[in-house]
């Protein structure tokens, strides 16, 4: 999962460090950027992503709020109305739900409501997903809610480099961005150039993480490592798998995804969110609409089960792992013995 940018002064960095750096650089560059949320001040956030910001920029720029998510997002709306660029931290996926009304009824609609007069340059950072042994309510994959809400951009990094680049792009965006941070990748490491961090990536472009010709694995955020691993393991089965990291769910990069699927003729969408009504359905449907005659097999999905997120000791059975991905690739009708009705 290394990237292709020039390797000036690269050293190992974690995704968490890249995110912190992105916040710091954005705050240093633009005094309108304000970070706010629960415990983001002295503590630096429960994941330490805002570490040092209150000290460096003062408590007015990096503010410990009272414990009320609707209040946090609602006041951020007002701050954005006055020209600030709030970056809101929701402590965990499930604790963003109290702010749902503010998000859907205001954040997503303010620009449209006012015909562009009141933009919402808000970034809403949400650590999401499982795999870290979190107890109930600390591991939800809530992206389906956000991508079904017109007016929001929904972005999620899978690499250290992207964590920086996409967060900078999100904060720079004049539209609200739900920035989903894969918790389980916070401590993932990569060689990275913190001294000259990669220029801001434009939102809405997928990235091909691995070239291949037999089938395309389409994924994002927390599931990229499993897909990369599966692609490697797939070689033993004779498959040369391409891996597409969406990076942005909204806007959706039909071009990159469809070009890949047209080339390979087969696709599997992989994500941790529940399958039913999850992002995979949309992705599979739009690929099929656009690439029907190129498909050798239906687009299949590997997703979380349609159950409440499991307790820590059972979560490994829920998460899409390498085996489940490869089992699904195997069902892409390579032979003539396909029987319908085995779909997930």
């Amino acid at each position, binding site marked *: 999962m290394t990237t292709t940018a020039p390797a000036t002064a690269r050293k190992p960095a974690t995704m968490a460090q890249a995110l912190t750096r992105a916040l710091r650089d954005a705050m240093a560059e633009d005094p309108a950027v304000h970070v706010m949320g629960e415990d983001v001040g002295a503590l630096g956030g429960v994941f330490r992503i805002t570490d040092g910001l209150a000290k460096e920029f003062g408590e007015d720029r990096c503010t410990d709020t*009272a414990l009320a998510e609707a209040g946090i997002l609602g*006041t951020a*709306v007002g701050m954005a109305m006055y020209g600030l660029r709030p970056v809101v931290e929701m402590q965990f996926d499930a604790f963003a739900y109290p702010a749902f009304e*503010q998000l859907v009824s205001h954040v997503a609609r303010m*620009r449209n409501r006012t015909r562009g007069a009141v933009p919402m340059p808000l970034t809403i950072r949400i650590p999401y997903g499982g795999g870290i042994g979190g107890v109930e309510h600390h591991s939800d994959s809530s992206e389906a809610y956000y991508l079904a809400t017109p007016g929001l951009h929904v972005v999620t990094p899978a690499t250290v480099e992207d964590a920086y680049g996409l967060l900078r792009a999100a904060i720079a965006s004049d539209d609200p961005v739900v920035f989903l941070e894969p918790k389980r990748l916070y401590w993932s490491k990569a060689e990275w150039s913190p001294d000259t961090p990669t220029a801001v990536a434009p939102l809405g472009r997928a990235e091909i993480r691995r070239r291949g010709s037999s089938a395309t694995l389409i994924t994002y955020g927390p599931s990229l490592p499993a897909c990369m691993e599966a692609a490697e393991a797939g070689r033993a089965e004779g498959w040369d798998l391409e891996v597409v990291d969406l990076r942005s769910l909204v806007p959706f990069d039909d071009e990159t995804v469809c070009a890949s699927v047209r080339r390979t003729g087969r696709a599997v969408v992989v994500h941790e969110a529940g399958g039913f009504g999850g992002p995979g359905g949309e992705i599979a449907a739009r690929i099929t609409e656009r690439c029907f005659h190129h498909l050798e097999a239906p687009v299949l999905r590997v997703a979380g089960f349609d159950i409440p997120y499991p307790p820590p000791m059972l979560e490994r059975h829920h998460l899409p792992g390498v085996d489940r991905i490869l089992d699904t690739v195997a069902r892409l009708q390579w032979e003539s013995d396909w029987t319908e009705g085995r779909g997930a």
Partner: protein
Amino acid sequence: MTVLEQPGSSRNKSSLAGPPPAWRPRVDPAPLLPDEEPYRILGTDAAARLDSGLLTRLYAQLVRGRRYNAQATALTRQGRLAVYPSSTGQEACEVAAALALEERDWLFPSYRDTLAAVARGLDPVQALTLLRGDWHCGYDPHEHRIAPLCTPLATQLPHAVGLAHAARLKGDEVVALAMVGDGGTSEGDFHEALNFAELWQAPVVFLVQNNGFAISVPLAKQTAAPSLAHKAVGYGMPGRLVDGNDAPAMHEVLGEAVQRARRGGGPTLVEAVTYRIEAHTNADDATRYRTDAEVETWRAHDPIALLEHELAGRGLLTDEFVATTRESAEQLAADLRERMNADPVLNPMDLFTHVFAEQTGQLRAQAAQLRAELEAEAAGHTEDTAGTAPAEEARP
């Protein structure tokens, strides 16, 4: 020996003097509590000190407001408004809210507060755009510093707090005044907004119009509090209780709260005791949940009548003054009627224009689809049904 005598611990110096002093932020609650009875000026000795100029100005605005409400309601019957929540009977609150603010300040109205926006100087047609149904907001909020009319109850309160806070951080002496109903005070957003406001010492004034009802639900089913203003103490904020039909009292109390906020004194919660004379909206049937007799007791406490009494006492309620006032109100109504009778010019393609700053490819494709449909429709109309659909509605 004690249980706490354990290696590495030497806790037996127990203090029986009570919790350590820093256990909580200390504020004296007494000055935060509202008066027992709503603050009034009209009908009391204090009325004498009122400036006649203020009284006639308030009166003219109230009369215009009443007429505006009647006209807007009439427009619903003519199908020119999708819906209208009237503020008849609440004009003193609406007008006082507008007058309390300076130009640089911000108003955060709810769906019922178009009158406050109009009294602040907004074009009534723009104010009514949401309720007419041609767009969600009919004006540029930055132009008059009026936030979009807000429908999801109490959700605009944190916006007002955030805006006022941002202004303060930038060093601007801007005050935000946010309006909400008695029903809206039950929502979690009310609670969270007030808490944030006091913690941030945000220059914001919360005006609760307690008009007795949330649609059909009377105040007694909404709260068991001594008054809504008493809620303020739970945030360390002063609460004030005012007769919402006493225009000079409203004007004074809101003015003081705005000044206090501007001086850095922090937010205030104002409860205006008033009454919703009309049904919730034109679509509502108030006979299902209240009696005419109750409404009559409030008609007897009408804000315009109260003011007229005072003006008459001062010899200011001359036929000429009343006639001029009425005429100005009629002009407003006539202008509104006329302009609302014209079909709005709508462009369906606007549906896609402001979803994002930059249109996504996905929306461009959807816009193209609609444009094609409209063109096909227009072609069809020319052939067989030309003229039946308002042409401007279908203009891509």
